[in-house]
């Protein structure tokens, strides 16, 4: 399990619709905005990279000091972004694929408006379980 990991789902409108600190280290107050800053800045890189490859998993696209941003872009251009300090690329890929599946299930909910915040607690627990499993 990575000591620091921040997972964010960003909608196609660049708005975060799901945020979770999934690292084993307790979340520090200071880190919250730093993580957001790094992930937000990484969107610029993703924007370029996403159109150069047909793969959904873009591997690590950006880094800030020892924190690495790995991104997975869905077909609807929703971006699953993980800020992490571990180097377990296979685990991250599996994590993204499973979260993508969960996200699709959310999308299938007729009451969920695409692009709106994901408030499902079930989704949250599942994502955290996946993070424990893979990261």
């Amino acid at each position, binding site marked *: 399990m990575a000591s620091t990991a921040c997972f964010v789902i960003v909608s196609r409108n*660049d708005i975060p619709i799901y945020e979770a600190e999934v690292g084993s280290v307790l979340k520090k107050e200071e880190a919250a905005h730093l*993580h957001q800053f790094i992930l937000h800045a990484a969107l610029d890189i993703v924007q370029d990279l996403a159109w150069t490859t047909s793969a959904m998993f873009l591997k690590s696209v950006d880094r800030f000091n020892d924190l690495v941003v790995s991104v997975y872009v869905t077909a609807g251009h929703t971006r699953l972004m993980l800020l992490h300090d571990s180097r377990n690329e296979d685990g991250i890929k599996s994590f993204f694929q499973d979260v993508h599946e969960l996200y699709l299930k959310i999308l299938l909910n007729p009451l969920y408006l695409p692009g709106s915040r994901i408030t499902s607690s079930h989704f949250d627990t599942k994502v955290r379980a996946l993070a424990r499993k893979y990261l």
Partner: protein
Amino acid sequence: MDPLKTYLGRLVLEELTPVVMVLTTPLVEDSCRKNGLGFVDMLLPFSVFKKFDVPVRTVNDQPYRLQMFKLRMVYASDVRQPNYEAAKEHLKQVVHDSGEKALSDLLSDPPQLETVLSNSESDLCPQWIQTFNKELIRTLSFSEHETFDHPVACLLVVSSKDEQPINKFVDIFNTNQLPSLLNDGLMDPKILKHYVLLHDNQDSSPEKATHILAEMRNTFGPNDCKLLCINSATEDVNNKGFSSVPYKTHGFLGEDIARCLNLEDLKSIKDFMQDLNSNHIIPFMEQKIRILNQQVATTRKGFRNQIKNLWWRKGKDDLPEDPSGSTYTFSSIETQIRILGDYAFILQDYELALSNYRLLSTDYKLDKAWKRYAGVQEMSGLCYFMLDQSRKEAEYCMENAFSTYLRVGSSGQRYASRCGLWWAEMLKARAQYREASGVYFRISIEEPSLHAAVMLEQAAGCYLLSKPPLLRKYGFHLILAGNRYYISDQIKHAIRAYRNALFVYSENAWSYINDHVHFNVGRWYGFLGMFDVAINHMLEVLACGHQSLATQSTFLNDFFHFVQRLGKSFDVCKLQLPVINLFSLKIVYEDHRTYASTADVDVTESLWQALEEEMVPVSTVRANWLDSQPKSSSRKDDDFSICVAGEAVKVEVELKNPLQISISVSSISLICELSASSEASTIDRSVSSAEVQEDTNLMKTSFCSDQKGENSSFTLSKIDVELGGGETKRVQLEVTPKVEGVLKLVGLRWTLSDSVVGYQHFETDAKKKHKKGKRSKHSWKSSLNLIVIKGIPKLEGRVDGFPTKTFAGDLRLLMLSLRNHSEYSLKNIRMKVSHPRFLIPANSADIHEDFPQCLEKQRQMENKDASGNAKNLSRSAFFSFPNDVTIRGGETFSWPLWFHSGSSGNISLYMSIYYEMEGGSSDMTYRTLRMNYNLEVLPSLDISFLISPWPSRLQEYFVRMDVVNRTISETFLLHQLSCVGNQLVISALPSCNSICSMQEIFAGQTLSCFFKLKVLMTGEKNEESVQGSDMLLSSAISNDMLLDVSRSPLSDFHYQERYHQGKLVKGYQSLLDFIMISKMVSSNLDSEEGPNQLLLSNHACHCSISRTSPIWWLMDGPRTIYHEFSSSFCEIDLQLTIHNCSNSLVSIRVATFDSMLETTQSSDAVHLSDNSNDQGGWYDVSLTNDIKLISNVQGSRSQKRLSESTPPFVWSALSSTQLAMEPASTAKLPLKIFVFSPGTYNLSNYELHWKIQPQGEGITDEVKNKSSSGLGQGHPFYLTVLQAP
């Protein structure tokens, strides 16, 4: 691209230039100081040679021309590595100065996306940043591992006033005073020397100077000596302006700059410099290059030398490495190569320089002299750039140099920064902005915070310049820069950086980012004392529900601190605290419909309308049947809601506190506008057009309406609320218009923590809703604009003592009180109640009577009153008060109401009271007062009755009453059981007195009582009248009287119960009704109830008589007979009375037989018991089962016995008789037996076969429930015949 035209090219030409070391005597400085300058400063403007155009020939035969050249004049004392701390201070000063200039910008609006994108490079990288970069590079000059800072020449200056000037020249070039570079042997001390005699014209005539010059020429050689005359200007003021011009461009500002210099002097200085440069320095360098090149060629060039070099170097590997690399003196071949390269570089022969650097880099690499290696790499990178050759090589060299410097450790760190700056500039020159920003970022990691801040800001600028612009990266790096600026105490720069980034984060979706940026900008503005701007930023972060408690309180505290410091009242549109939920906005106004309490408004309008349907006059006449919607009296009413002058319009809205900290919100009030009635019509039309301009005027109107508040045509209520953490509260605000006109609800205002006034407009949201559909917008619009009319005074009403929680069957007298506050009197009052089962109006006489004594039976009362009430049953739902009832102004009118909770559950009772005004003119004809009461009725006593025929008596029944106390803790006292119906008499069983005396029933207790019910056959049945027989159960208390169930209200409620329970019970109609009256002994329910006992009346209606067959029969005859058997056999007459209880035609066959068939009996017995099982409630277990068992056992035994012998008696007459019976008729059938011997006989061996004739509709129910035919076994009848004596 020409490298010389790029910024880096210019920078290289300016910075990497020959250094001229200057040695002066104090008198020289004195002379110069008259002009406010040092000697070096005086020469500075003339050390740059633009449009120089001098031919230079280095190693190649082909000369080339230098276009631009510069000399760096440095005092010998400065030829050393600058003190690091001093350099830092210097850089800080540079940053600080620029910050002061930027102050004015901070007050303007933050830049927007468009303006930032249109900015050119120079805007993003302002002059001061370039200055900073230059200064940063300069702090690293005179390093030990590089030679381009080594002085090329030495300028020895002696004043003509000096004693023995020749000796002075020798003295000042004393090795003790020379810089360490020369002394340590890092540099060749044999450098070009140039001797200058400075003559001050103010002191003496130039003759002495020329004399000394001649002497100098003799001593030092003719070419290397110069005379420089200065301060020739007299006190004439004219020259002053011109002579100081060159100095001003170099940053020397002041009144006395170049005061004593005239144009002659300046020209002579210029000529001196020109001569020094072109005649001495450049030729010297050319010559040195050639010599060095020759040396290098002989020692290092060629295959043989290379092999030798490699061999020799290998041997050196074993030696311990010296990190400072001081093993290389000026005479070592490596240093000589380096000097050769640097000189070539300075003379812009980059190819020569590059070849030497390459040669050198391998050497240093082998020697592991990493710092020197990096320096060489750095220079070769620059060479590649200046040659505009292989870009890849250039970048590789730079990266190599950068990382090598970093590898060296702390000593190389700052060189890495310099190298990085070159590198970044190089990338920028080639428009590789993204890579450049990466380099800047790498520099920032190693530098102290202030330097890092500047680097990060440059990195941000590069991200913006890259194509396409990386805005988020730009923002992020600006924030990082701002943070570093703040750490290094440059608040103005910090604000500037954050402000520039604001537009990137304007979308607000990334909550933590948003909070961080706005909070910090706000805080820093606060530090600078610009509280208004600070507060504007702080407002953005107030609703920070996602932050931790500590952060929230920090935000709030800082915000209120700034507000306090600002010291004036502060109005904020759309203040985020508390959050106003505009969707929860509800406007309650009363037109002709008025409500007793606010909760009543929530009831659906259709429910009220259905209730009031009969009561309210139809105001409009429909023109024809096509007009389904009745036209209202005025068109206005459709668009606007109506309210009445003098009555409050209530607005309910939800306030939410998103924080975990509690906040106090005070003086919440509405913002309203009321235009007088004369304008009403115009406003009506202009509302839609005014809509557009409203936004702009909104601020103004809200203020003026607020000022009007004191004396204007409406009054506003103010509410103070304390909102706890995360709490949501609904507040009700009121506005009371005083005059007629149009009232417009504009918005809401409140004061947060007594310091900040916030307001929110309703209108803005209405516009948002516009998208969703026209209808919703319309409704909003209409509800926000209210027409104020003059109306009928409002009646206030309430029902006193209405319980919220009670038990089923609770009977009580309530008081409806209506209060008229106005001076007008009201008439024509009517009332309608939704549930007459629960509430009926009483007689006005009831008001004076005590409850429950009024219910008690009064013998003298005649029955006509009761029957009169009973007929008028419809009045309970709709009730007109007597015509003479008027409510005069200021009076309170009371009317009693009977309340009876019929069934358990949650019940909403609706009452509507209609009234008109007596006389007087008004815009209304009538008003209604609507009241709604919710009550919870708990189950109390469940009563069930089972009535079964008395087996041996006609028209008498067993009544078994089961009472279950369903409450948890209450005890009831059974008071009275009444049986409704004229011809019924209920009485206790003679043998069961003990059961009846148990009149108390505790919680959860079940009680069964048995009664006898007798039907009186006299008189015909009258269903309507509620008359019956009563039985007092509580015999112990003698003073309790029976209650009269035949009078109102019990009879009325009974009728209702009968109606409601009748809906449930289908099938047997017109059966028995019972009323059980009980009292509650102790009540925990309502404390206000006090000692009064609750009176409960439970009604059980439509109790059916349980039967197994539709017929009922009884054998009648003598029981004991004395007969003389000797004379003849005995002949006995018997009578069988048969009654048809069903309501259909039944045909009956009576069959007698002398010997019984076993099969028939047993099957019938089973059938009987089955039937009784089907009956709900209870059934006569003892009787039926006993019979069955006994008869089964005994019967079979007796059968055997009987079949063997002849029966002791025989039936005479026919063995079967057929007869048909009308519904509810009785027939008597004579029977006869012959007895042959004395004994006791059971005359039960007869059967009644009955069959229901299908007739009319009566049978359908019958057939459903029961079999249409059946068999009745004879009842046992014992006859004793004795021998007559």
